[in-house]
């Protein structure tokens, strides 16, 4: 696949269709890649494609199209971007919210077979911090990890997939200019939502306790927000000082306010790419909250984020028969 990607990118530069290409480059640590910005045909060899390309690249797009740049009469760049299913859905969202112009994008869609969760690899073999993984190689559905004592273990990729990648329904983006790999739609809605259904069965106190437990680990580094393509606000409510909505401390009520605010701002927008969960250094289970919201929006408004460019987002529409009970009856 990587050869195909390079070929397309080379062509795009040759035909002068893009100014920048955003893809993945080799990481400096095992089981990692790093977002890679390419500005000409010479650097294309840097690109890689494997099961560690988990960063959602759509997050980088809005910063190229800031309104203040337009005011300065700068010409917006034409950007080529590699998009997995989830990145593609984020791109749809950003276009719909008028953060990025479709005509300046060249989307190379790729059918993704799921990304690996580093924690799962670490825990599959060794207990935390006991042994350091020094290298990892991937080959036909298997991952070969080597530890510092030169011991090698072979693991099945299937068992290492990130939670968001298990039962992924949209492995290829829904809009693209060229697609690498075939477009296969999977209907695994039930399996995907199973964990939320399980969680919902728990009594309210238990769910509340879980929420508190999770957010109490937060150090307010805002990596979850910064890694999310939807969080492009020029100034986040959490940062504002006039008025100041939240205290600055890691007091649990301040953290909860931030978390609830961030999560609720994702209603009808979160595409469940897992970027926030992966970015969080404290291992907080943010997805259980964002996914609940996804389910609610689906249930109440029949809407799924990042699927179509035409369908109006639920936060921007009003229908007289919109559900409202949830506002008054939690």
């Amino acid at each position, binding site marked *: 696949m990587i050869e195909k990607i390079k070929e397309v990118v080379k062509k795009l530069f040759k035909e002068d269709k893009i100014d920048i290409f955003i893809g993945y480059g080799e*990481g*400096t*640590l*095992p089981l*990692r*890649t*790093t*977002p*890679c*910005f390419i500005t000409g045909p010479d650097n294309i060899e840097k690109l890689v494609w494997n099961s560690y390309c988990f*960063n959602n690249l759509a*997050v*980088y797009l809005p*910063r190229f199209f800031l309104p203040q740049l337009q005011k300065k009469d700068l010409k917006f760049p034409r950007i080529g971007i590699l998009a997995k299913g989830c990145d593609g859905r984020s791109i749809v969202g950003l276009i719909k919210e008028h953060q990025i112009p479709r005509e300046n994008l060249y989307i190379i869609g790729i059918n993704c077979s799921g990304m690996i969760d580093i924690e799962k690899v670490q825990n599959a073999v060794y207990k*935390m*911090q*006991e042994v*350091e993984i*020094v290298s990892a190689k991937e080959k036909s559905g298997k991952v070969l990890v080597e530890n*510092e004592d030169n011991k090698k273990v072979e693991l099945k990729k299937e068992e290492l997939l990130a939670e968001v990648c298990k039962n992924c329904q949209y492995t290829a983006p829904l809009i693209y200019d060229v697609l690498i790999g075939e477009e296969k739609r999977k209907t695994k809605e039930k399996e995907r939502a199973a964990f939320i259904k399980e969680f919902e069965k728990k009594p309210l106190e238990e769910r509340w306790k879980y929420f508190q437990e999770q957010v109490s*680990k937060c*150090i*307010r*580094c*805002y*990596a979850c*927000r*910064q*890694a999310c393509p939807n969080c492009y606000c020029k*100034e986040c409510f959490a*940062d504002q*000082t006039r008025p*100041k909505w939240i*205290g*600055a*401390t*890691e*007091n649990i009520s301040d953290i909860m306010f931030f978390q609830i605010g961030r999560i609720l701002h994702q209603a009808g927008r979160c595409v469940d790419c897992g970027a926030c969960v*992966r*970015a969080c*250094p*404290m*291992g907080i289970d943010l997805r259980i909250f964002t996914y609940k919201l996804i389910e609610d929006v689906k249930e109440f408004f029949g809407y799924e984020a990042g699927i179509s460019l035409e369908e109006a987002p639920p936060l921007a529409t009003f229908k007289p028969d919109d559900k409202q009970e949830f506002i008054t009856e939690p």
Partner: protein
Amino acid sequence: MENAKLKIIKKKDVLKFLDSLKKEYDIFVPIEKNGDIRFSKFNSEKDIPWNYRNTKIPPKEIFFPQTETLFSFEAGTSTLSNGSMTFTPIDESKSSAPGNKNYLIFGIRPCDAQAFSLLDKLFGGDDFQDPYYLEKRKQAIIISLACNKPQITCFCTSLKGKPDNEEGADIILFDLGENILTKPITKKGEEFIENLDSWFKEAKKSDVDKKNELMDLSLKKICSGVNLQNIKEKLDEAFDISFWNEIHQKCLGCGICTYLCPTCYCFDITDEIDHVAGGLAPSRGKRIRCWDSCMFPLFTLHASGHNPRLTYKERMRQRIMHKFNYCPENFKEIFCVGCGRCIRNCPVNLDLREVLVSLMSLGSLCKDKKI
């Protein structure tokens, strides 16, 4: 320090040893919590995770916590003629219990101990004395634990460190398996061990040999490094070179690399006001300081709305410049100890070592390379 000062304590006695010091000291040890290791108050139920690599959150939080109340105040009864309210500080010394315990930091990694010696230069330098940090720091005894197994992100050897680096610690420990070898570094450390002599016995030559062997092995395990010679001088010329146009590109602007850095010290000061229930008038409040990060846009946002570090580029440059140029200028020290936390935890794998390598490999920085 001669070998005569080297002592041995049985590993299985360490918990009892620490327990016996509980009355006298506030003891901080690495403790497993929520799937991570973090420095927390000693608890004799929980064993020391001797094999731990390093904590995610650096032990700087003991002396320089993420949130610290500087003082509290309450609304006065009078209102000034211009309508503004008056506040009076609350005297905390009366209400708070007489603690006055000394701090004992047990088992921190040598790089983090070195980081304390850097923070000391800032918080306890000639220009400013930070009472909040110093109050705790001055009463502390630091016992570090040499590294038998460095991580792939460790590069302390590029920054005056090594797995048995002594700087910043009063005593250093070596994990020999069943025994722990102790080596006093400062006078304070020496006295500490002398006073508790009954717990220790003399180290044998075989113990010392074992220690040396372990340290040789450990040093070999550190496989990444950057030659940082003259980096300060190099950066003197580098403020406006085109280098900065690219290295920040993938940065997300989060707080991870600075919050988790043992030497990053920037903070923000705010007032938190409590309102009487239902009322709008502030009744009492606190002045607090919290960790802040140069990677946040708000960090330099002026009241006028102007922001001198408007984009990721200026902010990334600041992070590198501050550690590798401004601090050498002000404190004669690079403010990085090579612990690798920023590398390990960066969500986009922006590797500081890579940045430094490419910076050091730039030829002489002549004018025409500038933006």
